[in-house]
């Protein structure tokens, strides 16, 4: 695999045990340091795609390369090390309700910490300052010692993002990371993810429900429908027609943050600064 690539999909298909084909013969390359948004109607296969990237699902056919290796040809130890370099923000944060926020954030480094350190951190959190810094970036530093079941859905989602920021992965994957966060904060959270990727030169792949967020914040947008890539373009070249067609099966309007219609501009015209 080309050393400048972070991700390479080669005719990747995924079929679930119940026969649903979520990803169909997909080819895709993402260079190191690229920031990519994935959009598409629900059921399009965005989550499946990200989970393949996260090495959580193994393709039924085709090969993938992630961070310079084919994960499914690694031995146990190397696969674990690879996984610890990939950070996934799940749509529904997989965090035990009874866990404290600080613990949930520190859990991001479990793949890097030796076992004794993970266990010791349960007795007394090993890096309170580190957790606090990441939470501050998500504007929930005041929740540091609260229990996760005392947070709102949007706050919990931001804890999930803070965990992955704390993990400092070389490949950041986020699955609709702001679906429960209100619009003003969504922009902030997605902005922080972008900032992290730019500052550390790592790759960011984010599926997003809100199309405007994808178009405004990412230099590359991939439209997915029925497990196939419909378009793969810089946002300025994504036309309203393409978007309307992408979401045709779901609704008459293209989903945005506050459900307002996307400003119609002639195709090919720059909408807004790509990244601010």
């Amino acid at each position: 695999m080309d050393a400048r690539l972070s991700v390479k999909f080669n005719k990747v298909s995924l079929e679930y045990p119940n026969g649903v084909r979520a990803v169909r013969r997909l080819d895709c390359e993402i260079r190191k340091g690229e920031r990519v948004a994935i959009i598409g109607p629900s059921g399009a296969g965005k989550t499946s795609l990200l989970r393949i990237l996260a090495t959580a699902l193994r393709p039924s056919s085709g090969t993938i390369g992630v961070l310079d290796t084919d994960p499914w040809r690694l031995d146990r130890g190397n696969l674990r090390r690879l996984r610890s370099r990939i950070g996934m923000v799940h749509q529904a944060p997989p965090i035990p309700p009874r866990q404290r926020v600080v613990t949930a954030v520190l859990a991001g480094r479990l793949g890097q910490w030796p076992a004794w350190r993970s266990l010791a951190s349960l007795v007394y959190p090993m890096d309170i300052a580190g957790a606090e810094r990441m939470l501050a970036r998500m504007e929930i530093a005041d929740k540091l010692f609260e229990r996760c079941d005392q947070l709102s859905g949007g706050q919990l989602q931001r804890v999930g993002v803070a965990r992955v920021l704390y993990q400092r992965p070389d490949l950041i994957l986020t699955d609709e990371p702001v679906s429960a966060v209100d619009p003003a904060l969504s922009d902030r959270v997605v902005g922080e993810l972008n900032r992290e990727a730019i500052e550390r030169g790592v790759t960011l792949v984010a599926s997003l429900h809100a199309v405007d967020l994808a178009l405004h914040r990412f230099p590359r947008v991939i439209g997915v429908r029925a497990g196939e890539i419909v378009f793969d373009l810089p946002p300025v070249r994504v036309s309203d027609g393409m978007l309307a067609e992408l979401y045709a099966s779901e609704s008459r309007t293209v989903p945005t943050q506050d459900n307002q219609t996307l400003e119609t501009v002639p195709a090919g015209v720059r909408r807004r600064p790509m990244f601010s």
Partner: protein
Amino acid sequence: MNSIPRLRDPAAAPRLLLAVCIVALLWPGFSLTEFDPAALFDERGRATIVKFVGTFFPLETSPDFLGLVLKSTFETLAIATAGMAFAILIGWPLALVVTRSLSISRIGPGPGLMPGRLVRMPARFALMFFRSIPEIVWALLFVRAVGLGPAAGVLAIGVTYGGMLGKVYSEILESNDTRPATALLEAGGGRIAAFCYGMWPVALPELVSYSVYRWECAVRASVIMGFVGAGGLGLQMELSMRMLNGGEVSTILLTFLLLVVLADGVSALLRKVTG
């Protein structure tokens, strides 16, 4: 999606079949055990029961005997508690081994799937073996090995309950939300770390309440093992029964009731603390 949806619940037929199977399986059980509730209430049965229960009163409350019961109670509690501690030591590691959700190779599936299975199978078999032999049999075995006394009871409870705890702990872990642990494994975390950060906080109240309930069962079990020489309230009970002293027996039974009430309180308290 394009075909006309059929508006019949596809799960209905399997469910009906299951219900029929359950009845078909239970029926021979009842007839085989000559289960006949009416026998409890016919003339002869009732007279026997009344006479038997009558010998239980009045309760024996002499200070000497109460002192003896108190001492035996402590001994029983000690056997049950030490036995449980031993059982937890046996049960937890095995539970962590057999819990499939904590398997890393399952994700994908990746490398090490076969070795994983080869380790899980003997562990599962060990759990089955430990709990398939009744604690009284283990006790008889250990009495021969370590001699008469509480140590045999502790060992017997440890082994049998270790088998039960391992199985049920693992089932509790699996039946709760396993996504947090899975997510940690997918981020390169190890088995122990995934358990501690992803499963323990999810399942804690259920684990605690099951453990306390098992401790309560261990108290009863230690009584039965007293009959074969493992000390405690059981030994006392056996002596009283041999002397046909119903009053003493019922005092001891009342003590059991108090112990169960105690276990209930402890369980409720711990659930509140961990809730």
